[in-house]
């Protein structure tokens, strides 16, 4: 067993009333590839970002190589030997690859107040060569690289400081074969150099192959740490969820069932990364749209609801004979939209549950002289609170006081109360716990049974396979495949079309910026 490198003791972190981390103890030894898993919102990204200096903890202590460690910021953490590769795109497009590799360190190349770019490019190329990405030219413009290569540039940037501990936060989902190979070689090198790696991933297969230890987080608590032969998919899943997964988590039927009536017809949608997408939604259908985060599915959802306008084509509701122009007309036609970015777009945090839930229904609630009585608002809200079981003290409670799952329930209630018929749901289960997730799945099933039509946009494939009648896979703004509901459908089938070959997604990242 290697000697301890990084040690966390009693780390706590709160976001408002939400407890992201509760008394977390964690130990990373040298030569260890330590997996960190948990549901969304379990605290794994919070933990890693504290270690990497992107956030500070509220209480608790860290030790790095036996010395007290409390990074002030990310540069401080890097200088002390902690490097982190994150999920999101973190390179700047309109500067050179070399400048990106040495972001924040260019002063090291300064002579008489001028930066010696030749040196920067040379050093950057050395680092790229070293990690096995010699095909990337350090002098080239970053925007000219594709998404994956830009990710590799980020890996190079982390390696500049020659870290002792490498944190990989859900990076592999964005990488195809080449990127993965580079990353896994790097991991191997850390292992043989007796350094440590913290590896965060949702991919249980990958974790089993790479890690020699896996720690499971749930709701901010450390649940268990598995070693060697105990690292099995079953064990991990069971510990993540906290109980045996009931068979009825997703839909129990495996038939693709929906009415033939088309309720929403989108033709030739072009907006942002989305190019020329056609889509038809039927009565009683759950239509999935999946892909990587920047494939254009989120933008597509916004166009369907009229928040963004398509450059060509149209979104029509054939049954009603109307075109969707703006959110106002969509709401009027009983459509609903749930944004991926809940706190920023779906709800008014500073307002009460009541104010949030009645907002889309105000026009239908107005009585004589436009009067909306407190009583009618309250009974309307209480009914919704009952239906979804929103945990709260009273309808007038502010949303800032609610947990993520309950906030999401409020966002749903807005549209349930409005009696919406066509729902565009962008990642409705993102960042909420399993219990609320299950409740949302039941709700979707009910709505489907009642003849409502749902577009479910999601990055989570199990959810897609578990819930949808049809699935559209998107890549680079285009639909690359369509799957019908079937018990044989596997994640691997879908992923193929999400990522595809590296060669033909050149310039993706450039165009999506």
């Amino acid at each position: 067993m290697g000697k301890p490198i990084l040690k966390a003791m009693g780390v706590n972190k709160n976001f408002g009333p939400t407890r992201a981390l509760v008394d977390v103890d964690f130990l990373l030894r040298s030569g260890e590839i330590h997996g960190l898993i948990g549901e969304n919102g379990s605290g794994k990204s919070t933990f890693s970002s504290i270690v990497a200096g992107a956030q500070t903890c509220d209480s608790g202590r860290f030790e790095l190589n036996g010395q007290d460690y409390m990074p002030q910021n990310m540069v401080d953490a890097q200088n002390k030997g902690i490097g982190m590769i994150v999920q999101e795109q973190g390179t700047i497009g309109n500067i050179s690859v070399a400048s990106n590799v040495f972001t924040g360190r260019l002063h090291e190349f300064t002579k008489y107040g001028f930066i010696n770019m030749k040196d920067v490019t040379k050093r950057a190329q050395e680092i790229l060569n070293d990690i096995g990405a010699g095909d990337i030219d350090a002098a080239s413009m970053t925007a000219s690289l594709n998404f994956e290569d830009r990710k590799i540039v980020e890996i190079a940037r982390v390696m500049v400081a020659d870290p002792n501990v490498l944190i990989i936060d859900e990076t592999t989902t964005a990488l195809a074969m080449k990127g993965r190979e580079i990353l896994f070689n790097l991991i191997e090198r850390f292992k043989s150099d007796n350094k440590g790696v913290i590896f965060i991933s949702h991919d249980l297969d990958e974790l089993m192959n790479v890690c020699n230890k896996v720690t499971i987080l749930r709701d901010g608590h450390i649940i268990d740490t598995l070693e060697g032969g105990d690292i099995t998919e079953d064990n991990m899943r069971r510990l993540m969820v906290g109980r045996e997964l009931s068979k009825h988590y997703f839909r129990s039927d495996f038939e693709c069932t929906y009415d033939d009536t088309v309720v929403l017809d989108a033709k030739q949608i072009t907006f942002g990364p989305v190019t020329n997408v056609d889509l038809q939604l039927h009565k009683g259908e759950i239509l999935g749209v999946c892909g990587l985060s920047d494939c254009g599915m989120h933008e597509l959802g916004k166009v369907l609801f009229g928040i963004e306008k398509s450059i060509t084509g149209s979104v029509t509701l054939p049954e009603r004979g109307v075109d969707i122009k703006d959110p106002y007309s969509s709401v009027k036609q009983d459509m609903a939209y749930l944004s991926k970015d809940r706190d920023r777009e779906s709800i008014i945090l500073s307002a009460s549950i009541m104010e949030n839930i009645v907002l889309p229904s105000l026009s239908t609630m107005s009585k004589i002289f436009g009067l909306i009585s407190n009583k009618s608002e309250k009974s309307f809200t209480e009914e919704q609170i009952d239906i979804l079981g929103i945990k709260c003290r009273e309808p007038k409670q502010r949303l800032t006081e609610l947990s993520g799952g309950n906030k999401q329930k409020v966002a749903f209630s807005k549209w349930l109360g409005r009696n919406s018929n066509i729902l565009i749901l962008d990642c409705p289960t993102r960042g909420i716990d399993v219990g609320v997730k299950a409740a949302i799945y039941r709700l979707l099933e009910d709505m489907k049974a009642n003849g409502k039509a749902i577009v479910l946009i999601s990055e989570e494939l199990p959810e897609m396979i578990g819930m949808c009648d049809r699935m559209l896979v998107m890549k680079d703004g285009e639909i690359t495949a369509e799957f019908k509901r079937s018990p044989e459908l596997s994640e691997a089938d879908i992923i193929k079309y999400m990522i595809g070959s590296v060669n033909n997604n050149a310039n993706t990242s450039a165009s999506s910026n």
Partner: protein
Amino acid sequence: MLTQAQAAIDVNELLLKKARRKDIFMLVFPFVGLIFTIIIMTFATRGLFLSNENIVNIMNQSFTTALVAIGAAFVYAQGGMDFSLGAACGVAQMVFIGSYTHFGLPVWVGAVGAILVAVTATMIVGFGSYILHLQPFVVSLCVRSACTGILVAGCNALGRNILVPMDIYGFLNNNTLKVTVLLLVLLIGWFLFEKTRVGKEEKAIGGNILTAVQSGVRSGRTVVTAHLILGLCVGIAACFQMARAGTVSTQSGSGLEFNIMIALALGGFPMAGGSSAKIRSVIVGVLIITSLTNGLTLAGVDNSYINMIKGLLFIVIVAISYDRSNLKQVVFM
């Protein structure tokens, strides 16, 4: 596990308690401030402040501010700010007097003209910010500049300080009429603001414009409506203000926008708008700012010091009341 869960509940309770304490504080604070101001001013003026004549005086002084503040509440509730209203009020007064002294038009025509002028000014702010996608505040500064120019040019043309002929306009100083008008505007304002879609959508926009739009609120229409209401209030206030002042000059209406802003802040009206905006705050705030100005003047404090005190007070109030957890800044630009 049990102790951990217990700890979690404790911390949650603590954070909730803190939030609730702040809510209660924000609810009570303006009222305490009002009572405090009255007591201080009574002592500072040796009781003069609470004399019958002065109370009538305070009521009269608060009239214009109150009328305009009720209209301004709609703009502030959606996180906007209109700094043109003082200058617009000045131009409206000029139109009101000029229509009679210069053109010999009947009083009611002048009144309608004054209101139309005020509405035009605020509507330019509303439409301008909507069409140009600018903060209403920025557009209002431009309109303010234009209105000030019109007022100066107009006053020069009509003869500098224009005296108001009281035989014609004197009826506007009738206290019964003023109280009736104020109560009517207050009632309608309160109803629209608290009980109808208009006010609720203004507040939703102030709370989170993205959410409001995605919930089917037409942001452009809502912004313009708020400025329309403000314009009506400014126009009505201008008519009465002119009769009270007895004269129209290049200084008419100046400083009104600051008084409104400070009144709203003192009353606990959130400067960034949103759901905690209440008409109640408007009334309390107007009473505080009027009492303060009146009391300090009675106590013999120079006018320039009074403005300094108001400015400092505004900063202090905003610093205390500004909700930092909202991650939203009071946007002035």
